[in-house]
Structures are given as structure tokens and as C-alpha cells.
């Protein structure tokens, strides 16, 4: 027993290394979303700027749209936000925002501060819709086609490359 005591730190470390080893073979950024190719989970949520109105997935049938999951508390959202603002100016594809686990006041203030690229933002205060969409880190962006099928998922902040090389070509194709 006594000699085992000195080996305890080693034992803990071996377990830790085993986990790190498995962790290495996985990319935390690229979670293959089970949603791709399936229908986007339906929701009907209150709008951030007009709490008495709601937006439902059904309203968006027939359009290609982006769902961007954001929050005022999210650090990386600040990184991708200028890109979204630019995208909104170009008017290529409507971007809907899902204000995830956020205080609506904080969310509105954040958009006032950083600019509002969203056609509309909806409030997912308790994160239910986020769970349906498999959101595990904010920001995330989903591309949804006219039939309501998820075609692409970006985990983490949008990058200019991802936008130019993957999302926008796909949007053009889906809009045809």
C-alpha cells in the first residue's frame, strides 16, 4: 500500500496521456454534423427586436438562408462579426441570427455596438433550439436550402476562406 502511494501521480498521468492521445486524433473544430443532409430542426421563436413576433422555420421554405448562432458573451463572435456585416451588405443570402443562451437586452446592445447583419434575430434563451441543432460552441453557422435541408455547417468563427470557397459557391448552386 505504502509504495502504491508514490505511484499515484504516475497513474493519474498515464490516464491523462491516454486521453490526450485520443484527443489528438480528433479535431475539436470539425465535428461531422449528423444534421447535414437532413431537415433542419423546426423552431418557432420570438424575434429579438420585436418580441411579440415570431419566426418559424416554416416561414423560410423556398429560400436559401444562413443560420448564424451567436451570443453577446461569445468571444469568437467578435472575430467573425465584421465578415457577417460585410456579407449582409452584399445582399447575397439572408442571414438569420440565433441569439443563443443570452439576455435579450445584452444581445440587442451587442448588435447596436457591432452592427446588425441579420435579416432577423431570434432568441433562444434557454438553449433548447441550440440543443436540437447540436450547437456545442458558439459561433456556428448553418446553411439551409429551399427545402429546409441543412447543407453545410461551419463550426467556430466564419473565415474569409470558408465563406469564399465553400459557403458562397454552395449558396449560388442552391439558389439556382
Amino acid at each position, binding site marked *: 500500500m*505504502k*509504495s502504491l502511494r*508514490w*505511484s499515484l*501521480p*504516475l497513474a493519474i*498521468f*498515464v490516464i*491523462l*496521456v491516454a*486521453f*490526450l*492521445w*485520443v*484527443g*489528438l*486524433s*480528433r*479535431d*475539436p*473544430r470539425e*465535428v461531422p454534423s449528423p444534421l447535414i443532409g437532413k431537415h433542419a430542426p423546426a423552431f418557432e421563436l420570438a424575434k429579438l427586436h420585436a418580441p411579440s413576433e415570431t419566426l418559424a422555420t416554416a416561414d423560410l421554405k423556398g429560400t436559401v438562408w444562413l443560420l448564424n448562432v451567436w451570443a453577446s458573451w461569445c*468571444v*469568437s463572435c*467578435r*472575430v467573425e462579426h*465584421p465578415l457577417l*456585416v460585410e456579407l449582409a*451588405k452584399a445582399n447575397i443570402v439572408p442571414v438569420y441570427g440565433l441569439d443563443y443562451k443570452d439576455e435579450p437586452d445584452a444581445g440587442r*446592445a*451587442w448588435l*447596436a*455596438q*457591432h*452592427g446588425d447583419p441579420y435579416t432577423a434575430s431570434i432568441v433562444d434563451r434557454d438553449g433548447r433550439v441550440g440543443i436540437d441543432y447540436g450547437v*456545442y*460552441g458558439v459561433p456556428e453557422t448553418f446553411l439551409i436550402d429551399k427545402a429546409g435541408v441543412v447543407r453545410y455547417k461551419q463550426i*467556430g468563427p466564419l473565415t*474569409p476562406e470558408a465563406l469564399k470557397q465553400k459557403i458562397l459557391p454552395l449558396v449560388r448552386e442552391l439558389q439556382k
Partner: protein
Amino acid sequence: MIPELGHFALILALLVAIAQSMLPLAGAAYREPRLMALAKPAARAQFLLVVTAFACLAASFVGNDFSVQNVATNSNSELPLHYRFAATWGSHEGSLLLWTLMLAGWTFAVTLFSRNLPPVLLARVIAVMGWVSVGFLLFLLFTSNPFDRLVPPAPEGRDLNPLLQDPGMVIHPPMLYMGYVGFSVAFAFAIAALLGGRLDATWARWSRPWTTVAWAFLTIGIALGSGWAYYTLGWGGWWFWDPVENASFMPWLTGTALIHSLAVTEKRGAFKSWTVLLAILAFSLSLLGTFLVRSGVLTSVHAFATDPARGVFILVFLALVVGGSLTLFAWRAGKVGLGGIFGVVSRESTLLANNILLIVAMASVLLGTLYPLFLDALDLGKISVGPPYFDAVFYPLLAPAVFLMGVGPMARWNKASLPDLWTRLKWALGVAVVAAVFLPFILGRWSPLIAAGLFLALWVVVSSIVNLRTRLAGSHRHGIVAKLAANSPSYYGMLLAHLGVAVFIVGVTLVKGYESEQDVRLDLGQTVDAGGYAFKFLGVVPGPGPNYRALTGTVEVRKDGRLIETLKPEKRIYNASGQTMTIAAIDIGLFGDRYVSLGEPLSADDIDGAWGVRIYLKPFIDWIWMGAFLMALGGIVAVCDRRYRLAIQRRTGAIGPAASAGAPAN
């Protein structure tokens, strides 16, 4: 030519490091003085070679040599000189080279300042540091060569990440790495002691100054990083529990525990195996931090350059170094023994309790940081752990640790009595409680958390004053100056560092309790009031920067109609990358900052119109960093203690554990 020279110097450094890691160790095993004597010159030669390599890389950056891949990816000819120099460590390769340089520098320092260490111990210490260096040089040369050429050369560089173009970049990474890597000395001493099977008070006295200096650097490095985040990210936060921040915080917590544990081992001969374990842990966590930052196993705002293939290398290296050390520990620690025994109420027991709280706090940070990875590895889903977890777990663990900071220095070694402690500290406790209950009313708003935070800070300060008074009253000398001079620098270092903790707690408590923020739309000339200050918006003008275009706003801050500061918050659009950066403008004050950052113009094309402006009041926030600097200063003062120099000057055998010249009286 210069990059090739640097590359060649690195290869030579690797060969020298291999010699440095093997020969002295063999010499120590066979008691062969000539082999042991190789340790010093090898370490010095290695330092020279790594400095050469580093200088070559820096020269390539400063001279805009875009035929070097690393330079072409991380610099730009428009980049100002000091950022071109700092870009040397702006990439993955460069920061690893900085790591190696720091390691070689610390080893060089050991050869300079340990002239009278027993040769066997010195040979082992330098050899152990050589092993670590071999690992890093192999890593550099085989996976991350900073000198790789680009054929054909790029006409222009891609530019340094704008987030890194900041004075913080020039100084934060070197300081942080000094701290990280500095723990390698304590680690090498611990391994050398385990190898030799001899672990006593002299060993602790040799390890202490090295550990304390490394800890002081790490403290400053973390504080600088936090200050940098505060003013560059444009939204006024100072700590985010980001994995990379955690990676630097875990060695700090362990290092703090180690400093205190070493004190006990030196003064009382107790906690021996615990101290050795902490020394191994502190450096292991530094390595783990490097792994987490460089391998990309976790997502982080800091993940600038990650590559899973490199992760495999660091993980194997980590497994060898840490696994090897812990195996050695499991094998030898039993022989080293536990050291002295002590009473349930004693200075030892309070320090042990504090140590355990610090290590549990460290473990909770480690768990929170790696939890997403654990779940993912077990296929239980992907999650992220955020500030709510850390806030809920961390503060309750550190609060009792801070409380013990007041008790520990007052308790006697070996055996203290609770009634005696109560008599000596009851007034301090009373003053702290009463002041903590009433102060929040004066400051504005009462909340239990504010009162609790203030209580802890006041308790540390008042109990330190009581401690100093008791010391002075017990001194036989005459006159206050003589009485003050009778105490050792290490005693004052402790008081300063503890005072730093109190100042830090005041900062955290008050900024969390009383900060306010406003997002306002301001027209030209419009004024908004916040916390007794009037902020007047005077518009935004475009202007050129060295490598960016800037939009600079002007906001006048007035109090009672008197102009106290004109703030110039900026938005920058960098030419090479097209990225935007928000640079906040801060009117710094001892009792709080006024922080202004620019949002977006009301209509995108009209910069002369109304703007969204964010105005923060951050009461006492600078106390957070002042506290950290006081802690580091305390560490530096403690290292100036005479007995460390004596330990160097005298023959080692002459100093027994009890005969330490400058040691405090009780």
C-alpha cells in the same frame, strides 16, 4: 545565408545538448570528475549557439527576408521595426525557438550562479536541463524549422496577425516564457535530488531563489497578457478562462504552492516528497501548456498556429519527460522520506492546507480545461466549459486559502496553540469584518460578494500589519530603523507579495461589483453622462497608420464641467490582411478607468454621422495588475535575501539546515 547559419547553429546546439545531457550524467554515476566538468562548458556553448540561431531569425525578420517561409507568413515590410522584431516569436516556430532560448538562458544562469554547488549535483541538474533542451531542439528541427526557405521567395509578407501588433507582443511572451521555462530549474534540481537520493534543507535553499524568480516572471507575464486583452479586445474583460490562459495559470498555482512548500522544507525539513512532486508538477504543467497551445486539441482564441502532427511529437515528449520523472518519483520518493513531523495546529499545517487548496484549485482548472476533451474522447458528446464553471469552483476554493494567508505567518513552527492565535488575531479579524461590512455602503451598493471579497483583502492587510508589529515588538534592538532592519528581505518579500494578493482581490471584487457599461448612439457633439462623468463625442476622422488605415474618434471626458481627458478610440483596417481591429482608449485612474471604444457608424457609408460608442467605467481595475506586480516584486525582494548569497559563497558543507544566517527568528 543568414537563415542557413541559424539553421546550422541549431543543429550544432542539438549535438551539444546531447553531449550535455549524457556525459555529465555518466560522470555523476561513475564519479568521474572530467565527465562531470563537461556540464558547464557544454551548457554555455549550447546557449551561445541558440542565441546565434535566434539572432539569425530575428535578423531575417528585421531585414524582411521573404525567402524564409516563416518571415513571409508572419511579417510584412510595412510592419514597424519593433513589431518585425517581435514577430520573431509571433509564429509557432518562432515561439518554440524563444522557448528553447529561454531554456538555454536559464541553464547558462545555473552555470554562473551555482559555483559552489556540489559538482555531482550540478552535473545532474545541467544534464536534466540538457534532456529537455534535446527534446525541444529535435522538435524544432524535425517538425517546426523556423528557417525553411520559400522557393520562389514571396514579393511581400502576409503580415503579422493584427491582434499581435501591440506593445504587449514585444514583452508579454518573453516574460511568460521566462516564467514557464524557469520552472525547469526547480524541476532539474528535484530530479537531480531524486537521482542522488539526497534531499535536505540545503537542496531546498538552492532551489528556492530559482523557483521564486521563475514565479515572479510568470506572474508578470500573466498580468501583462491580461492587461493586453483588456485594452485590445475592445470590450473591457481581463480574464476569460480560455484554455491558453488556463495553461499559464496552472503552473502559476502550482508554483505558488511550490514556493511555500520549499520554505517549509528549507526551514523545517518537512514536506520533502511533496515538495519534489510539486517541482515536477510545476514544470510538467508548463509542458502540458505548451502541448495544449501548440497541438490544437482544444479550441481557443489563442490558437494561432496548430497542427496535430506536431501534437504527437509534443505528447510523446511530454510522456517521456513527465512519465519518466513520475516513475523516478514513484521509485525513489519513499527513500527520500517525508521529513519532520509537526502538530495539527502549526505553521506547517496551515501551509500544507494552503498547498492542498492551491493544488485542488489547479486540478479544478485542469479538469475544466480538459473536460471537453475527456467527453469527446469517450464519445459522450462535444461541450465547452465556460466561466460559470470556473467561477463556481474556483472562488470557493481560493477563499479559504486567502484566509489562511492571514493565519499561517502568525502560527509558530511545529506547534501553535489556537487560543494564542485567537488572542493575537482577534483584533485583525474584528477590524476586517467591520470594515468589510460597512465599506460597500460607502462605495455605493452592498452585496454579500463584495463584502466577502473586501473582507479577505482587509484580513490579509490587517493580519500582515499585526504580524509586522509582533515582529518589531519582539525585537531586542533599539529604534524603529534597527528593528525594521533586523528582519530579512525574505520576510518583507512575503509581506509585499501577500499585500499584492490583497490589492488584487480589491481590484477583482470592486470591478466585478461596480463596473458599468453603456452602449450609446452618439451624434456629433452629443454628450452622455456615466457615473458622474460627461462624455462628449466629437466625431471620427480617417487617417493613415504605418500599415493600416485608421478611423479615429475623439471623446472628451469632463467631470463637473472640467476637461480631464481627451480619448481617441480607434478602428484599424490592416492593409495586408484586411482585418479590422478595435483599439479602445482608456483614461487610466487609480480608482477606476474610463474606457471608450468605437462601435459602428449608424449608417455604414457615413462616418461623419452618428456612431455607436461603448463607454465603460471600470472601478479599481488597475489594482488587479498592481496586485500582480506587487506579488512579483515581493518575489524579487525575497530573492535578495543574504542567505542565498551566503549559500553560494560558502562551501556547501558548512551550512547546516539550522545555521542559516539570515533566517527569520521564529
